[in-house]
């Protein structure tokens, strides 16, 4: 018996479906049966969730509709329908539209994590300070003043060092 779904392979799976009072027999090959039996095929992927999200909240879409990335040629609308960006430059080109989207998705739109050393010491320190400030807030909230004091000192140390470095940098450039 051939599989009634693909009509190619041999039917090895025989199912009886009962809906209400009706009984229906199905003869399928293993592959087609698996597709039918796998309820997860229907589970939305993050991409699906993203595109539904995109369709729901689109106040800036009119404004962004004509925007196209100069580097890869992807249009903002294409991104909104596919949920995938075309190149790293898109994050700059579509910044206005992306920022609220990222806010919805992650609850934030500013990166505070790791910074590649190539991006420069200044940025690394800036991010560390940002990070320490958040920890400081948490410590104060928990009334852990000992930890808070340590964090405050560290922040102060980092910020002043960074300022000094910047000054040195400018001096060197001036020369």
């Amino acid at each position, binding site marked *: 018996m051939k599989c009634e779904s693909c009509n190619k392979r041999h039917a*090895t799976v025989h199912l009886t479906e009962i809906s209400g009072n009706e009984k229906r027999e199905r003869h399928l090959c293993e592959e087609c049966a698996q597709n039918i039996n796998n309820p997860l095929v229907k589970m939305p992927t993050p991409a699906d969730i993203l595109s539904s999200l995109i369709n729901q909240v689109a106040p800036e879409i009119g404004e962004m509709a004509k925007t196209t990335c100069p580097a890869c040629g992807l249009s903002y609308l294409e991104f909104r329908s596919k949920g995938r960006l*075309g190149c*790293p430059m898109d994050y700059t080109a579509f910044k206005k539209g992306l920022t609220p989207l990222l806010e919805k998705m992650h609850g*934030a739109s500013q*990166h505070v*994590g*790791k*910074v590649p*050393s190539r991006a420069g010491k200044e940025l690394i320190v800036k991010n560390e300070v940002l990070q320490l400030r958040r920890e400081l807030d948490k410590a104060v909230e928990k009334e852990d003043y000992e930890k808070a004091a340590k964090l405050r000192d560290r922040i102060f140390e980092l910020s002043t060092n960074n300022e000094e470095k910047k000054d040195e940098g400018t001096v060197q450039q001036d020369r």
Partner: protein
Amino acid sequence: MRELYSKTGEWLKGTGPESDIVISTRIRLARNLANFPFLNRGSEEQRKEIEKLIREKLKEAALTKDLHYIKLSEVSPVDRLFLMERRLISREHAGGDGERGVAFGRSETVSVMVNEEDHLRIQVIRSGFELREAWKIIDEIDNTLEEKLYYAFSPRFGYLTACPTNVGTGMRASVMMHLPALGLTHHIEKVFNAVGKLGLVVRGIYGEGTQAIGDLYQISNQFTLGKSETEIIEIVESVVPRIAGYERMARKALMTENREQLEDRVWRSYGMLKVARMLSSEETMQLLSQVRMGVNLGLINDISMETLNELFILTLPAHLQKQEGKELEANERNVIRAAYVRKRLGEFQ
């Protein structure tokens, strides 16, 4: 690749903290090269160029002494499935097409997928609950690669990725947990709901969109932007022991209130594995799951956790076919799987 067939990765040892409930810890980082489009927008030529560039740099970087690189376009679908079953590559990477590859070390702790959704997906898997350890390893690998490759990064949005759901840290920290008692007592849904409120998600064992079989679940962070790697790890780290505690509570409750039923269930599963002549992959996982819980509860004493953990992987379709050295139909596989399980567990006399 042949020497992989008969052994398993180090993450299956069944060691590490909380290893009665936490099988393994995995961290992955998504990275892209600054000078190329993302893969969905790149040409076939660019794809090849990226693959070649990263492959060469990976060799140069010598992340581990014995890094092995496999071009996925040059291996059979069974081999790709095999790598996926071993969690060295994702389901998407196994099924995708075009020039792509994976590099991994002998212990299978580290693997780097090239040209998956992003140019690079670096992952580290450890046995048991070891997020900090895993982060330390992956952070170093990332630093080493960063010296060789020019990553796409912006101070505002962090590491730039093809899908905005991964942007920022590009990090997914996940912990694979074995939660049979929460399943049996129907508390698992509650756990999922609670976890969701904390910004974490629950997935099946092969990641996004896969089913949870054998009571195995992956708990991981949902957000990648606006929180640092350490903060993300802290969240996962604080939640996992609570879920494990909840699972232990459910086990204890079953042991005191329904001991006969629980013992019956565990022993029947063990018996079934020892006598069955045909076993599907899914049934095997379900039975192994019950036996694993039985071992944890001290009901069964004559089988090691390592053997059980191993059986979860070695009885999967591609692993069986590789051990047999030929492609097998599902029915043939079920017969061979049952025979293999009987051999490993000691046949009923």
